[in-house]
């Protein structure tokens, strides 16, 4: 427990406004999203160094997605009232692949940064797979393929309540093997749920190898388009491109559910882990993580 927290967050503008108002306050003080993404990447490594039970590779592929969602003016949220009705909903379906959310939520004030030192420890609430006991998490995740369907119900409910809030779902490409996703995909287009935004962390690898070698999705965008969705593609590690894609997707309300397919690398930035077919279950050696963390940010 002596590993120091990376303090990269201190280099950036304070988030007192953002805590209250979500992304809306960001325009007044531009944030270096790339630097923030790097800080989250380092923090995620540091958490994994302390808690090797956490899934590192699938959490590193999604760093820029979550940074863009939470710091890029995309999601409206209120860290002091995580379940306030006026928030945009963010359902994190790829549960274990979202450990990078822990430093983000702590940084934004959803809970104390001290919790980051207790990941996977007795008495803490940040587990190896996040649960909705964590402020900022909406649903039970990690059992894969549940998020999109529940988010679809939320989107339908918000429509019926005449709410202008939107629902985001972050899903991995591997979990799209679960058929329930496609039940939801059909339903969402049938009901013209244009308040539903699916972000796919398309790292191309599930537990035992490349998804193309297991059961290929071929083209996710073609498949979703055929299901009646409005699809975009983006380089998932270009955080500014992800931010632009998310903002454009959110602003599009044309009677179709929307998807942003972010092409990413599992285990990004970690030698031996990045894009390795078994990266989901590989743990880099502690010395390797130490050497990566010792490098200047």
């Amino acid at each position, binding site marked *: 427990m002596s590993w120091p927290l990376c303090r990269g967050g201190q280099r950036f503008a304070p988030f007192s406004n953002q805590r209250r108002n979500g992304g809306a306050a960001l325009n007044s003080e531009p944030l270096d999203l790339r630097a923030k993404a790097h800080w989250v990447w380092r923090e995620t490594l540091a958490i994994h160094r302390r808690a090797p039970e956490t899934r590192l590779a699938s959490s590193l592929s999604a760093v820029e997605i979550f940074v863009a969602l939470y710091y890029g003016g995309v999601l409206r949220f209120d860290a002091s009232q995580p379940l306030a009705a006026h928030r945009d909903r963010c359902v994190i379906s790829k549960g274990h692949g979202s450990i990078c959310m822990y430093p983000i939520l702590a940084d934004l004030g959803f809970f104390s940064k001290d919790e980051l030192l207790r990941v996977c420890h007795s008495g803490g609430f940040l587990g190896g797979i996040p649960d*909705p006991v964590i402020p900022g998490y909406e649903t039970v995740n990690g059992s894969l393929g*549940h998020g999109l*369907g*529940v988010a679809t*119900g939320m989107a339908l*409910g*918000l429509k019926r309540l005449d709410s202008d809030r939107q629902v985001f779902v972050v899903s991995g490409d591997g979990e799209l093997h679960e058929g*329930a996703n496609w039940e939801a995909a*059909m339903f969402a287009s049938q009901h013209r749920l244009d308040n539903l935004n699916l972000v796919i962390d398309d790292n191309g690898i599930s537990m035992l190898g490349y998804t193309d070698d297991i059961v290929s999705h071929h083209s996710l965008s073609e498949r979703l388009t055929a299901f009646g969705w409005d699809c975009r593609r983006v380089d998932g590690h270009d955080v500014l491109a992800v931010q632009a894609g998310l903002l454009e997707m959110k602003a599009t309300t044309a009677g179709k559910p929307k998807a942003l397919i972010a092409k990413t690398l599992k285990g990004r930035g970690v030698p031996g882990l990045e894009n390795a077919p078994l990266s989901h279950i590989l743990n880099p050696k502690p010395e390797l993580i130490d050497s990566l963390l010792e490098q200047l940010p």
Partner: protein
Amino acid sequence: MTTKPLPMRDVLLDRIWQAMGQDAKIFFVSADFGSPILDKIRADFPSRFVNVGIAEQNLINVSAGLALEGFTVFAYAIAPFITMRCYEQIRVSLALLSEVRPINVNLIGVGAGYSYVVSGPTHQCYEDLTLMRAMPNFQVFSPADHVTAGALFERCVSATGPKYLRFDAQVLPVIYEQTVPDLRLGFHVHRRGRRICLLATGYMLHTALKVAAQQDPEHDVGVIDLVDIARFDEDSLADELAGYQGLVSLEEGFSGRGGVDAMLFDFLARRNLPLTLLNLGVNGGYRFELGTRAELHEQVGIGPEAVQRRVAAFIQSLSH
């Protein structure tokens, strides 16, 4: 004047239809399963009725999402499909999630036991009580007639949390002409006896009442209808059973596989009640024979004649 028997589902759906006019928070979700009363809901409340299609996993997920946005949700499908096709959706997004978020989703499963008589084992349902009672925070109701089914409406809207309502697909004779079972107790005493008590749920209450009426009066057979499988008033049931020598459980589900019988074995042991339990349910495995419900019941050991024989033998065994 006797009450005309009605389908359980139509009576509950009529209550829902009436309430939807006043309560804008009620949402009805079907997995392409209908009823005449459902047509009224579809016509009158099109914005709060949705058919997800033949897609029970999505039925549960959409219901969970609607409940998270504050709706009281009724989800409706055939019993084996709404419980078993989507069991993990139920576990994850209803049972687990309701531990931390207030959600009210009421699963209406039609087709208890053998009630889809000629449809065979895909549509028959003998495992659902076991599965649904396995989740500690699920409420599970098994009515024996349409009066009880309708009375469940208030519980559905007033009590938060996930619930399973196990409805018969057939129209069953009315049991509760004059009264309604006390849902706070979760069970209803139909007759009191001294030697043995038949504790039945759903359709099997009708069998229990028939069998009890045929017993020699000196055997003093009691009959209890267990409506609430998961949260009945344990103290009251323990009081009610005090003095009996034997208890017979009757369920239209596999015997010895974690259903009502297992619940009662556990209950008797935990309460230290000195009753011998005879558990009567479906014997054996899956079967494809065609027959009337009565014939099928006799084949698997829960028809009135089979129950009569087994209860008589049970009484004999207690005498020694």
